[in-house]
C-alpha cells in the first residue's frame, strides 16, 4: 500500500481513550485507527464505526448450507441412485433433518469465520506494523495520520492534553504485507527513530 507518517499516542486507561477519540474527531484530525488490548465497548460508536454485517453473511452462508444439504440428499436419493432401504420412501424428509441442520451450521460457521478473516485482512503469514509493543497488553493506542496539512507538534500537544502517556511520530506501512514478525523491516533498520521505542 503506502508508507505514511503517524502521530501515535498511548493511553493508560480506556476511560481516557474514549473521550480523547471523540475530541480528535470533533477537532478534525485524521484518525487512522485505535488499538486496544480488549474490546472497549462504546469505542466503535465514538469512532463512528458502523455495526458489522458479519451476521448477515452468517445467515446467507447458513441458508446456502441448508439448500446444499436438502438439494444434494434429495437428488442423490431420488434421481442419482434410488436405493430401496428397507422399503422406506425415497424422499424421507424427517430423516434428512439432522444432516440438513449440521450442514447449515457448518457452512455458516466456516463461511463466517473466513469472511471475518477476509474483512480484517488477517491470515497466517500476514504482517502489519505494530505501533506500540504493549498495545496488546495494557496500553490503549491511537494513531493519527499525518496529512500535508497536519502540524505534527500541534497534534502532539493536543494528544498530551487529552491525557496521553507518551506521543511518538512513526513512519510505517499502513496496510499489511507478507512477512514474519521475527524479521525487522528495511525502513526500520535504516531509520531507527521510526521504529517503536
Amino acid at each position: 500500500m503506502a508508507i505514511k507518517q503517524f502521530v501515535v499516542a498511548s493511553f493508560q486507561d480506556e476511560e481516557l481513550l474514549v473521550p480523547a477519540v471523540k475530541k480528535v474527531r470533533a477537532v478534525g484530525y485524521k484518525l487512522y485507527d485505535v488499538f486496544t488490548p480488549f474490546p472497549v465497548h462504546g469505542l466503535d460508536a465514538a469512532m463512528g464505526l458502523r455495526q458489522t454485517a458479519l451476521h448477515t453473511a452468517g445467515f446467507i452462508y447458513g441458508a446456502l448450507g441448508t439448500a446444499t444439504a436438502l438439494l444434494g440428499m434429495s437428488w442423490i436419493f431420488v434421481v442419482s441412485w434410488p436405493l430401496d432401504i428397507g422399503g422406506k420412501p425415497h424422499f424421507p424428509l424427517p430423516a434428512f433433518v439432522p444432516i440438513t441442520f449440521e450442514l447449515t451450521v457448518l457452512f455458516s460457521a466456516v463461511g463466517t469465520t473466513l469472511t471475518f478473516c477476509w474483512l480484517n485482512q488477517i491470515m497466517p503469514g500476514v504482517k502489519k506494523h505494530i505501533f506500540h509493543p504493549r498495545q496488546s497488553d495494557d496500553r490503549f493506542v491511537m494513531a493519527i495520520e499525518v496529512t500535508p496539512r497536519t502540524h505534527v507538534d500541534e497534534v502532539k500537544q493536543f494528544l498530551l492534553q487529552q491525557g496521553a502517556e507518551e506521543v511518538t511520530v512513526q513512519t510505517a506501512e499502513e496496510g499489511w504485507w507478507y512477512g514474519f514478525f521475527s524479521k525487522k523491516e528495511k525502513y526500520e533498520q535504516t531509520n531507527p527513530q521510526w521504529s517503536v521505542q
Partner: protein
Amino acid sequence: MLHYESTVREPLVNGSKDYHQVTEDIISPLEKKPGKLWWIALGFALTMLLFGVWSVFWETYWGIGVWGENRTVGWAWDITNFVWWVGIGHAGTLISAILLLFRQGWRTGVNRAAEAMTIFAVLCAGQFPVWHMGRVWLAFFILPYPNSRGPLWVNFNSPLLWDVFAVSTYLTVSILFWYSGLIPDVATIRDRAKKKFAKWFYGICSFGWRGTAKEWQRLEALALLLAGLSTPLVLSVHSVVSMDFATSVIPGWHETIFPPYFVAGAIFSGFAMVQTLLILTRKILHLEDYVTLGHIEAMNKIIMLTGGIVAMAYITELFIAWYSNVVYEQGAFWWRIFGPYWWAYIILITCNVVSPQLFWFKKLRRNIPFTFVMSIVVNIGMWFERFVIIVLSLYHDFMPSAWVYYSPRWPELGFYIGTFGLFFTCYLIFAKYFPVIAVWEIRSVLKRSGESYKQQMVAIEQKTTEEFMQEVQHEHAVAAH
C-alpha cells in the same frame, strides 16, 4: 464510572491486579522453558499414546477379532469410549457458547481450557468409530462423493451417517470458535516475545492481529454468531449419538427419552473433566486468582443439576420399562440389575446418582480435594453409564442360547489408554505453549469483577439513593461543560 457490579457477587479475579499484571500472570509461564514435571507428564502421556498406537496396529493387522466383541455383543468398549469422549467435549461448548449467550461472566476464567478440552476429547472420540471399521483403509466410504462404484452413495437415513456429519461439524466449529478467541492472546505473546523463534511462531499463529476497534467489533460479532450456532449444535451432537441407539429396535436402546438424557449426561461428565483438568492446571501454573473457588463452586452446581437430570432419566427408564408391559423391555432392565453385570449397574448408580448429592453441602462444593475426587468419580460413573447402556442391552438378547458374558481383551484396553495418551499429550502441549486462560476476556471483566475494583464499590453501595443520584447528576453536569 463505566463498570458496575454489585459486591454481592463474588469477584472473578482475586487480588489487586491491573491489566499488565493479568498478562504477566497468565503469559509469563509460557515464556519459560518447560519444567521437569512437564517433561515427566509428557513422557507418561506419550507412553500411553504409543501403547495405544501399538494396540490399534495389532487390531488393524489381525482384525476386529482380537477384541473381546462377539456376535451377540457387537458394540462394546469402543462405542462406550466413543460416547464417553464425545460427551466430555460437551462441557467446553456449553461454557463457551451457552454461558456466553446467558452473559455469565465466570466463563471467562475457564472457557479457554474447556474449549481445548472439547477439541481434544472429540479427536479421541473420533478414533473409535474409525478403527472399529476394521478395514480402516476404506474409511472414506462414509463420505458422500461421486464415485466409480455405481455411484454408490451413503445412506442418509442412517443415524450412523448423521453421526459422521454431526461429529465432524462439531469438531470443525469447536476449532473455529476456540482459535478465533485465541488469536488476540497469541498476538499478546508475539508482542512480548524476545526470542526470534517465538516471534516467528507466534507471529504466524497470530494472523497479524493488532486489536483495532473494527477487529474487536467483528470478533465479538463472530463469537456471538458461533455461540448461537454452537448452542443447538452441541445439543444436536449428543442427540444424534443417542439416536445411534434410540432408532434401533433393541430393548434398552429404543427409547424416546434418549436425546435429552444423553445431552444431560454429556454435560455432567464434561464438567467433571473440566474440574479434573482445571484443578490441576490452576495449581501447577499458579492461576488460583483466575480460577477461583467461586468458579469451582459454579461448576459443581452444574454437575449437581445435570446429575439430577440423569438420575431422573434412570428412574424414568425403569418406570417406563415396567409400565410398558413389554416383556423384552422388562427383561432388558431386569438383567441389567440382577444379571451377571449387576456390579456395573451398582457402580453407575453410586457414582452418578448417590455421590453428587454430597454437593448439596456448600462446604463440600467449595472443597478442592473433594471436588477433584468427585470429578473422577463422576467420570467413572458416566463411563459405566455408557457401558451399561451398550453392553448390558446386548449381552442378553432375544434368544437365550445366544446370551454371553463380554470381557475386554488387551487391545481394547490399550486403545482406550492410548486415547488418554492422545488427550493428555495435546493438553500438555497446549497448556505449555498457549494461554490456558483467555487473557483478553479476563481484561474485559477485570474492572467489573476484579477484587480490588469491587472494593471501590463498597463506598458507593453504602450511600443512599438520593446521595448517589445527586453525585451522578453533578458528574454529568461537569462532563457537559
